[in-house]
C-alpha cells in the first residue's frame, strides 16, 4: 500500500474547511463536532508516519515528488526526516486539543474560527514537509493569513488589531528578504550547474563561496530569527501572544515558533555551513541574551499570558543555543526542546485560558489561593510549571540538560551563563505559581470558582502524559531523531568556517 500519506496530512484539513463552509452558521454544535472529528482523524492519519518511520536512516522518507511547474524548476516535493517527523506529529497532536479547548471559549463566529484553525494546520504541516524552496515559501506565507485572522478577530478587544498587524508585518519583513535570497540561490545554482531548480536536496550539494554564504545566511536567518523569535527581534511576540485567543496562543507558541528554529536547522545551517560556523558566536550570544533577558522580564510581568510569552523567548533561546553547538547532544537537545516547549508552553497557555474563561482577567494580582477552590487545576498547573522550569523527571529537564551539555563542549562560558536561565526560570515560574495558587483566597470572586470540567481534564491529560513520558524515557523520541541529527552534525563537521575578518566580507575581497 503506497498512499501519499504526507499529502493526505497536508490537505485533509482543507477538506474539513470545505465541509465546514457548507454547514449552516447557526449550528455551532455541528461545526464544532465536525472540526473535532476532522482534527482527530488527522491525528489518527498521522500515526502511521510514526510507526512506519525508519529511524536508521537520515534520508527523507515518505517522499512525494510531482512536477508542479517544470519549466521553472518548481516541484511539489515533500518528505520528512527525524526532525520534521516530531514537529508534524506535534501539530496533529495539538490541533484536536485546541479544538476541545475552544469549545466554550469561542461563541462568536465559530464557523470562521474553525476554518482558520484547520487552514492553519494545513499551512503548518506543509511548512514542515516541504522540500522545495518555492513550496516552502508558499506554505510559510500562507499560514500567516489564518494566524493573523485568529489574533485580529478573536483576540482580546483592546489591542488585537495592533498585535495582528504587527505580527503580520514583522514576519513578512523577514520572509521577503528570504525570498530575494532564495532567488539569488536559485540563479546561482543555475549558473553553476546549468539546472533551474528550487529542490532543496539538490541545492544542498551546491558549493557556495563564503562571501555569498555570509549574506544569504543573514537573509535567511532574519526571517527565521524573527519567527523564533530571537532577541532583538522578539517584540512582536509578547503582543501577539497576549492578545491572541487561548487557542491562537497555543498554536503560536507550540508550532509557529518552531517554524523558525526548524528553518535554521533545515535551511540555514545545511545550505550555508561555512557561514553558519562563522556566526556561532553571534547567534550563541544572542541566544544567551534571549535566555537571560526573557527570564528577567518574566519576573516583572503582571499579566499571566505576557509572562508565559516572555518565558517563550527564554526557552527558545535554549533551543537556538543547542542548535548552534553543532554537536550531537546540543542539537538533539535543541530538537527535543522544541517539542518540550510546544507541550509545556502550549499547556501553560491552555491553563491560563481556563482561568481566563472563568474570571475574564489574566492579571496575577487578581488571583491568589486558587488551589483551595480548584485542587485538580492546581495539581496540573504544578506539573506543567515544573516541566517548564526543567525539573528532572519531566520533559523540560531532558532538553535543557542536553543543550547545556552540548554548549559546555563548545564554550564553558556559554553553558554557565545559559544555566543561570534555568535558575531564573525557577524564580519567575514558582513565584508566579505562589502568587496565583497558594495562600488564602484574597479576592472574593475567586472563592467559588469551579474546578476543571471533564472536558478540560480530557484535553490536558494527553499533554501531561507526554510531559512525563519525555521526562522519564526520552529515548522513544530521541531515537527517531538520532540518524537525522547525526547526519546533520556530520554535515556541519565537514565545513568549518574560514578565518576571515568581517571587514573583508563586507568589502567583498576574500579569495
Amino acid at each position, binding site marked *: 500500500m503506497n498512499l501519499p500519506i504526507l499529502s493526505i496530512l497536508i490537505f485533509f484539513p482543507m477538506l474539513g474547511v470545505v465541509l465546514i463552509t457548507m454547514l449552516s452558521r447557526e449550528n455551532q454544535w455541528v461545526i464544532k463536532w465536525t472540526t473535532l472529528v476532522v482534527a482527530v482523524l488527522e491525528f489518527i492519519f498521522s500515526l502511521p508516519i510514526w510507526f512506519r518511520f525508519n529511524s536508521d536512516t537520515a534520508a527523507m522518507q515518505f517522499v512525494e515528488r510531482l512536477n508542479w*511547474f517544470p519549466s521553472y524548476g518548481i516541484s511539489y516535493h515533500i518528505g520528512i526526516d527525524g526532525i520534521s517527523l516530531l514537529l508534524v506529529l506535534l501539530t496533529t497532536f495539538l490541533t484536536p486539543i485546541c479544538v476541545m479547548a475552544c469549545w466554550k471559549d469561542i461563541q462568536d463566529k465559530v464557523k470562521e474560527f474553525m476554518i482558520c484553525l484547520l487552514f492553519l494546520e494545513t499551512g503548518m504541516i506543509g511548512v514542515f514537509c516541504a522540500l522545495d524552496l518555492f513550496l516552502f515559501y*508558499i506554505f510559510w*506565507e500562507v499560514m500567516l493569513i489564518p494566524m493573523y485572522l485568529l489574533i485580529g478577530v478573536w483576540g482580546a478587544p483592546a489591542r488585537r488589531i495592533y498585535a495582528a498587524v504587527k505580527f503580520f*508585518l514583522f514576519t*513578512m519583513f523577514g520572509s521577503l528578504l528570504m*525570498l*530575494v535570497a532564495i532567488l539569488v540561490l536559485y540563479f546561482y545554482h543555475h549558473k553553476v550547474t546549468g539546472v533551474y531548480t528550487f529542490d532543496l536536496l539538490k541545492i544542498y550539494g551546491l558549493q557556495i563561496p563564503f562571501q555569498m554564504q555570509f549574506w544569504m545566511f543573514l537573509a535567511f536567518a532574519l526571517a527565521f530569527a524573527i519567527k523564533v523569535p530571537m532577541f532583538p527581534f522578539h517584540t512582536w511576540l509578547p503582543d501577539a501572544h497576549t492578545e491572541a485567543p487561548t487557542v491562537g496562543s497555543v498554536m503560536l507558541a507550540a508550532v509557529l515558533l518552531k517554524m523558525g528554529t526548524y528553518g535554521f536547522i533545515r535551511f540555514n545551517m545545511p545550505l550555508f555551513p561555512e557561514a553558519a560556523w562563522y556566526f556561532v558566536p553571534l547567534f550563541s550570544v544572542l541566544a544567551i541574551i534571549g535566555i537571560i533577558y526573557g527570564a528577567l522580564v518574566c519576573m516583572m510581568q503582571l499579566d499571566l499570558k505576557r509572562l508565559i510569552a516572555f518565558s517563550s523567548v527564554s526557552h527558545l533561546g535554549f533551543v537556538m543555543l543547542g542548535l548552534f553547538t553543532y554537536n550531537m547532544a546540543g542539537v538533539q537537545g535543541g530538537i527535543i526542546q522544541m517539542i518540550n516547549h510546544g507541550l509545556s508552553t502550549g499547556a501553560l497557555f491552555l491553563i491560563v485560558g481556563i482561568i481566563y474563561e472563568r474570571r475574564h482577567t489574566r492579571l496575577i494580582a487578581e488571583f491568589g489561593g486558587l488551589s483551595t477552590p480548584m485542587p485538580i487545576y492546581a495539581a496540573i498547573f504544578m506539573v506543567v510549571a515544573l516541566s517548564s522550569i526543567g525539573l528532572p523527571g519531566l520533559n523540560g529537564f531532558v532538553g535543557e540538560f542536553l543543550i547545556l551539555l552540548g554548549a559546555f563542549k563548545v564554550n564553558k562560558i556559554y553553558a554557565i551563563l545559559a544555566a543561570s536561565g534555568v535558575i531564573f526560570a525557577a524564580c519567575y515560574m514558582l513565584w508566579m505559581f505562589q502568587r496565583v495558587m497558594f495562600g488564602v483566597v484574597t479576592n472574593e470572586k475567586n472563592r467559588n470558582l469551579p474546578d476543571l470540567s471533564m472536558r478540560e481534564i480530557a484535553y490536558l491529560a494527553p499533554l501531561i502524559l507526554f510531559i512525563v513520558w519525555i521526562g522519564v524515557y526520552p529515548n522513544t523520541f530521541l531515537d527517531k531523531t538520532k540518524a537525522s541529527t547525526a547526519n546533520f552534525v556530520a554535515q556541519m563537521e565537514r565545513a568549518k568556517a574560514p578565518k576571515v575578518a568581517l571587514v573583508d566580507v563586507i568589502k567583498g575581497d576574500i579569495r
Partner: protein
Amino acid sequence: MTISIPSITLSNIGPLLTLTVAGLLLLLMDALTPKGKKGYFPYLSLIALVIAAVQTTMLWNRSGTDFARMIYVDNFAFFFYLIFLLATGLTILISIKYLEDYHRNLEEYYTLLIFATIGMMLMAAGGHLILIFLGLEILSIAIYILAGLFREDVKSNEAALKYLILGAFSSAFLLFGMAMLYGATGSLFLDDLAQAIKAGVGTNPLLLFGMGLLIVGFGFKVSSVPFHMWTPDVYEGAPTSVTAFMSVGTKAAAFAALVRIFFLVFPEIKMEWNMLLWGLAVATMTLGNVVAIAQTNIKRMLAYSSIAHAGYLLVALVAANQLGAISFLYYLVAYTLMNLGAFAIVILVARKKDDYINIYDYCGLGFQYPALAAAMSVFMFALAGIPPTAGFVGKFYVFSAAVEAGYIWLAIIGVMNSLISVFYYLRITVLMYMRPAEADLGPVTMTPAISSAVLVTAAGVLAIGVFPGPLYELALNSVKIFVGL
C-alpha cells in the same frame, strides 16, 4: 511612377475589424432603437468581444508584419489583445448596474469602450511609431469622454478636464520624441529604428533625447513617478467603472507599446536607459506605496496602489531579459484580474452616488457579506503579493527577473515596497473582519453580471496563482520575438 498596392491579409486584423464593425453598429443602432429598449447593448458588446477573442486565438502563432509593415502580427500582440479584451469584458460586466443606478446607462458608453479597446490593440500591434500614436489617441479620446460621463458631477468634470489637459501634454512629448527619433534615424518603423541603432547611431544625442521624451510620454500614461500627478484625482473623480478600466487597460496598453519599443528597438543601448528606468521604478514603487498608506478614500488608495504596481512593472522592464518580458505579461494578466476584481467590489459597496467609498465603510463587512468580503480579501492579498495568489507569482517573476539580471538591490527595494503595501491592503481586511460595522450599509444587491465578474476574477486570481505553468508557457511563447534579450 508606379504605385504598388501592398498585399494585405485582412484576417490578420480580424479582431480589430470585428470590434470596429461592432462599435459602429452600436452607434447606428443607438440612433434607431427607441428609448428604454437598449438594455441589450452591453450584451451585444460582450458578444463582439468574445468573437474578437476567438479570432485572436485562431490567429495565434502567426508571425510577421502586415499592412506594409505597419502592423505586427505576432503572439506578443495577440497576448495583449487577450488582456485588453478580458479587461473590457470585465469592465462591461461591472458597469451595467452601476450606470443604471446613475441613470447613465448610455449606449455611447459601450461604443467608447470598444473604440478604446481598438486603440489599445493598435498600440500593442503597431509597427510604426505613428500608428502607435494613433492607437494612443483613439484610446485617450474615448477615455476623456468616459471620465466625464457624469456631467452633473463636479468631480467627474474635473477628472475629465485634468486628464484631457495632461494627456494632451503627454501626447505632445511623445510626438516630439518620435520626431527626434525620426531625425536621428530617418525612419519611424520600429524595424528600421532597430537596424539603425544596431548600425551604430546609438550615441547620437538626438536619439537619446527622443528616447527620453518617449519615456516621459509613456510615463504619463502608465502613471509613473514623477508623471503621476493626475492619477489620484482622475481615478477618484471618474465613474468607478471607468477608473477600473483606466487602471488596467490604459496602463497595459501603454506598457505594451513601451515594452515593444524598448525591447525591440533599444536593447542595444540598454546601458543608456537602464539606470534611468531604475530610478523611475524605485521612485514609482516607493511613492505609490507610501502615499497609499495615508488614503482613506478607497478609490484614491487604489489609484496610488496602481502607481505602485506600475513601479513593479518597470522593474521587469529594467531587468530587460527574457524572464523580465515574461514576468511583464504575467503580471499584467494578474494585475488586470485582481484590480478589476477589487474595483468590482468597490462598485458593489459604493453603490449609488459613491456613498460608501471611504475605507471605513468596509467595517464589519466580513460577517455581513461573507462572500463579498472573502472575494475582497482575495484581491487585497493578491495585490499585496501574498501566496497562493496570482499577485504573488507575478511579483515572484518580476523580482526573479531583477535578480537574474543582477539588480539585487532593486529586488530588495521591491520586496520592501511590497511590505509597505501589505500594510494598506491588510487594513482593508482589518476593517472588514476586525472592526464592528460603523454605519448600516443597507442591502448590497448583486446582479448576475457583476457577480460573475467577481467570480471570474477571484477564481482567476487563485487559479493562475496556484497553477502558474500554462500562462508562463503562453507568455514565453509571446516574448520570443525579442531576440535581443
